[in-house]
């Protein structure tokens, strides 16, 4: 295959856009936490970036797209460290069917693994030990994300080459199952294993900075163009369709969320708008290439309204999914994945395509939920026994930022800012050698 420079340029940009989503998520989540735990919240996203960028090139790519072990997972040793994934036998760069170098595909896919795992952190805000989270990231991306990516996108069990394809070819354009159902179920399982924050449902835990959350939602939307339009794997009409669907569904979801709030609570809130953005983006993710723009409006509006209702479930059912990973990502992921069965322009029920697409979409959604649920439960319970998940109650009450990271996000009072006292207790000036100072 000849190198397609246009497609390659677009895929490099897409990979960069998707990477930007994770800091965007850190802002989105960080604004929603209390001011005493915003740094810990954001560090969970940055920690996931640091861990997974490394893990992905070591065994992540191979477990996702390497030679299949029973349709469940790729062999991690097959292309460990990207051996055989960059160059062909003659030393030239491998080029895929779209004219894009394989190494660019690695870049693109690694960013998906990062954002998916980071999404889970919203369910366990304010109370999770950072060290346990970092170990969880390695285990979960390895045992849940890479197998799911292999099953759906790597020619495995839930792909067009799997056993369910005899009913209809499963559609997951950019990650309804692999990303959102996977992360949403994991968030639910971890919230149950780790338990509720002290005072959950009794004391106010309102967002400390909604402007941060709205900025994060904006960055997520921008980055999501790489996520969805990039999932065309080239710069073509499908990419354009995915771009438009990504915007129309998201806009409709904002309207759906705000209308639901206005009717129920009396106000259209900024947090509702930011949440509606994400709900719409989640729902259109698996469907971006299969729907018409008009169909995507219907899907987005449904996702916005349903997610706005779903975020209240945690109070009724008593699980502390702190920032609504379940209500937004699991519910939105299900709406999108199953919605394809109704709205796909070629095979959807409402377009006269019969029920077979709907059936296969339900099947892959259920398999994804069971797989992610079981794997996350095993990892979560093992870490609970070996490392422990929770900070102490004192730390939780006083703020996890101070205890886990030795920092505070904001200068609370300003007293001491102008102090020139260099006596005991004051920070000593950092000594630098002359070479360092001039470096």
């Amino acid at each position, binding site marked *: 295959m000849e190198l397609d420079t246009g497609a390659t340029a677009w895929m490099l940009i897409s990979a960069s856009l998707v990477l930007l989503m994770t800091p965007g998520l850190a802002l989105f989540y960080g604004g929603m936490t209390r001011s005493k735990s915003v740094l810990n919240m954001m560090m969970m996203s940055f920690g996931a970036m640091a861990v997974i960028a490394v893990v992905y090139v070591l065994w992540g790519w191979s477990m996702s797209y390497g030679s299949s072990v029973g349709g469940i997972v790729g062999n991690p040793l097959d292309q460990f460290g990207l051996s055989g994934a960059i160059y062909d036998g003659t030393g030239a760069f491998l080029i895929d069917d779209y004219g894009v170098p394989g190494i660019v595909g690695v870049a693109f896919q690694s960013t998906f693994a990062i954002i998916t795992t980071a999404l889970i952190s919203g369910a366990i805000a304010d109370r999770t030990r950072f060290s346990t989270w970092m170990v969880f990231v390695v285990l979960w991306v390895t045992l849940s994300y890479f197998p799911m990516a292999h099953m759906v996108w790597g020619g495995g069990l839930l792909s067009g080459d799997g056993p369910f394809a005899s009913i209809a070819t499963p559609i997951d354009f950019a990650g309804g199952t692999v990303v959102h159902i996977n992360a949403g179920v994991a968030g639910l399982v971890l919230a149950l294993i780790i338990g509720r924050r002290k005072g959950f449902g009794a004391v*106010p835990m*309102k967002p400390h900075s909604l402007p941060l959350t709205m900025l994060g939602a904006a960055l997520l939307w921008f980055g999501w163009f790489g996520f969805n339009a990039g999932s065309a794997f080239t710069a073509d009409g499908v990419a354009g369709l995915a771009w438009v669907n990504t915007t129309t569904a998201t806009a409709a979801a904002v309207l759906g969320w705000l209308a639901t709030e206005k009717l*129920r*609570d009396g106000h259209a809130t900024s947090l509702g708008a930011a949440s509606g953005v994400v709900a719409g983006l989640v729902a259109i993710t698996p469907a971006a290439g299969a729907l018409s723009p008009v169909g995507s409006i219907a899907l987005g509006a449904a996702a916005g309204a349903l997610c706005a209702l779903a975020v209240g479930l945690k109070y009724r059912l008593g699980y502390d999914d702190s920032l609504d990973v379940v209500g937004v990502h699991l519910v939105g992921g299900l709406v999108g994945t199953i919605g394809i069965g109704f709205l796909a322009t070629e095979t959807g029920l409402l377009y006269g395509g019969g029920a077979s697409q709907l059936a296969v979409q339900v099947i892959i959604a259920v398999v994804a939920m069971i797989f992610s649920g079981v794997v996350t439960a095993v990892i979560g319970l093992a870490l609970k026994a070996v490392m422990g998940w929770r900070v102490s109650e004192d730390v939780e009450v006083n703020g996890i930022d101070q205890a886990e990271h030795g920092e505070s996000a904001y200068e609370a009072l300003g007293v001491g800012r102008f102090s020139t006292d260099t006596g005991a207790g004051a920070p000593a000036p950092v000594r630098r050698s002359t070479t360092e100072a001039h470096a």
Partner: protein
Amino acid sequence: MKLVTAIVQPHRLDDVKKALEAAGVHGMTVSEANGYGRQHGHTEVYRGAEYTIELVPKVRVEVVVDDYDAPAVVDAVVGAAQSGRIGDGKVWTVPVEDVVRVRTGERGADAL
């Protein structure tokens, strides 16, 4: 001397300042305060969860004045801060034993 402390709506601060200046008060201390009265704040809704925000933001204005001026100063503050609606605030007066101007060491009424 008397310390007059006023808790008022933040958006009334400019009016209160003008009224105090008109009443001959030369200086004041203003700080941000949070509190609630009979209404117990208000409610806010985040993702469908309703929170009671008991502590609402107010501004605290403190001035030390001669005994003789105190009633007029209180009247000036009340006149400037009053809207007739819930949440207008409170003003109270307490006796002050001594005041010292740090720059000069002057004491009592001379330090005002």
